[in-house]
């Protein structure tokens, strides 16, 4: 089963909706250890993605995702713009020349997006950032693709990986990003970015 541009657009549209609907819950996740504006800065950008989704060049998956990244770069506040924009930009580049995406292509897309975020923010696994949910997702998808699993099962594996990754951030001390100042005080709270990834994945699959 392959994913086409129509489905990619649907997923991005739904993703935007989930981010907008969760603006306040995401802010609340962030206020425990960060500065409480994560939901707002993210929703600000994806509100524009949703509004302009029909105007983005959809002649290829690459061009569509690239168009999304430009909107995110322009409208997401604070650090969310570079982080999510870089992820979409790298995801776009990984789709170059592909008319549709196999599970292996999707896995590669997540690997590339994840490494772009790492390059931009300088964080690694265990720094209590959204990477603690995203890296396990990329790994789960890659493993599923190598094992020849069907897409649906692979996505379920990815969700479990995201949820386990987000849960694991509760025990971590933040060293990067906004929650890093509070250090030890961030223990027992999940990272807002990682928790958001798990929530988004869950709602996307439902």
């Amino acid at each position, binding site marked *: 089963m392959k994913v086409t541009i129509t489905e990619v657009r649907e997923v991005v549209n739904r993703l935007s909706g989930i981010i907008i609907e969760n603006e306040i819950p995401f802010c609340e996740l962030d206020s425990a250890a960060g500065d409480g504006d994560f939901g707002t800065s993210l929703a600000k950008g994806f509100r524009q993605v949703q509004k302009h989704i029909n105007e983005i060049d959809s002649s290829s998956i690459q061009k569509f995702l690239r168009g999304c990244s430009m909107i995110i*770069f*322009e*409208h*997401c*506040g604070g*650090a969310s713009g570079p*982080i999510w924009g870089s992820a979409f930009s790298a995801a776009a580049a990984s789709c170059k020349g592909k008319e549709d995406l196999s599970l292996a292509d999707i896995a590669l897309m997540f690997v590339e997006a994840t490494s772009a975020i790492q390059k931009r923010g300088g964080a690694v696994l265990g720094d209590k950032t959204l990477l603690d949910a995203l890296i396990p997702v990329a790994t789960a998808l890659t493993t599923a693709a190598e094992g020849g699993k069907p897409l649906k099962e692979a996505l379920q594996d990815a969700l479990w990986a995201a949820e386990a990754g987000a849960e694991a951030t509760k025990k971590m001390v933040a060293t*990067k*990003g906004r929650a890093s100042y509070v250090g030890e005080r961030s223990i027992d709270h999940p990272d807002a970015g990682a928790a958001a990834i798990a929530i988004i994945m869950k709602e996307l699959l439902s």
Partner: protein
Amino acid sequence: MKKVLNNIENIVDEMCKGIVAANPGLALDERYRIIKRKEILKDRVTLISGGGSGHEPAHAGFVGEGMLTAAVCGDIFASPSTMQIYNAIVQTQTDKGSLLIIKNYSGDCMNFDLAAEMAEDDDVLIDRVYVNDDIAVEDSLYTVGRRGVAGTVLVHKIAGAAAAEGRDLAEVKRLAEKTTKLVKSIGVALTSCTVPAKGSPTFVLADNEIEYGVGIHGEPGIERQKLRSSKELAVDMVDRLLPEAGLEKGNTCVVMVNGLGATPLSELYIQYNDVARILGQKGVEIYRAFVGNYMTSLDMSGFSITLMKLDDELKSLLDAPADTAGMKI
């Protein structure tokens, strides 16, 4: 919260329009919230700074002759987006290139870096300096490393003077970096700021408490302390700053006593009086002083002290003319 506003969502847009309306030498790009000089002089390196709003007059108030070419305005306390910064670079391009002056906060660094990389892909001549003058904390709510605060204004001044002399990008960058290495600041808050979108104070201090080492977004500092006299605070803060600034007996420096937004000028002058006396006792000569609001934190009550050691090169750049809303020399 008690503020005279129209619509909380339009705070930054209306403020930008007001700044440009009040200063005929400035122009506004409304879409990207760029405040720039009406006339971009083609024979000069352009200087671009910016960051979250709420620190006025920084940075838009320092756009003009002898200082910045453009300032990019983010939402209150949030970095401007990559595309805002990229467009500021494009709109102020000259053959001599651009220098970005960035306060060291994670969001600002990511957005300015990415915008610079995009501009480099367009073969634009561009370079960057990061200001991290706040000696209070090493890692903070928004940073890896030290925060950029009021000392940034002196980087605007020195780099702006160098650019106005027609120096090339490498020279302007060298002088900006020399300034960032020498300039050191520390601040105290008597009350918190109130971010309008939130509507309540970011933190609460008792009547007899201060936040020592506070950041310009209301981030915590070193510790909560009992309120002390201007004299006692001046001794404490200058003692912390002197070794960081490498200032010793016989050296010359510039002093900035900066209000954080809601501090009466009388109190800033009282503080400056104490700082000047202490420096005199230590044998450190004051070459020039700035007392006023340069890098504020909305309606926070409190102040910061900035010290920077000067040599002949920096003295002459500091003395060069500047004609901006926030600083005139």
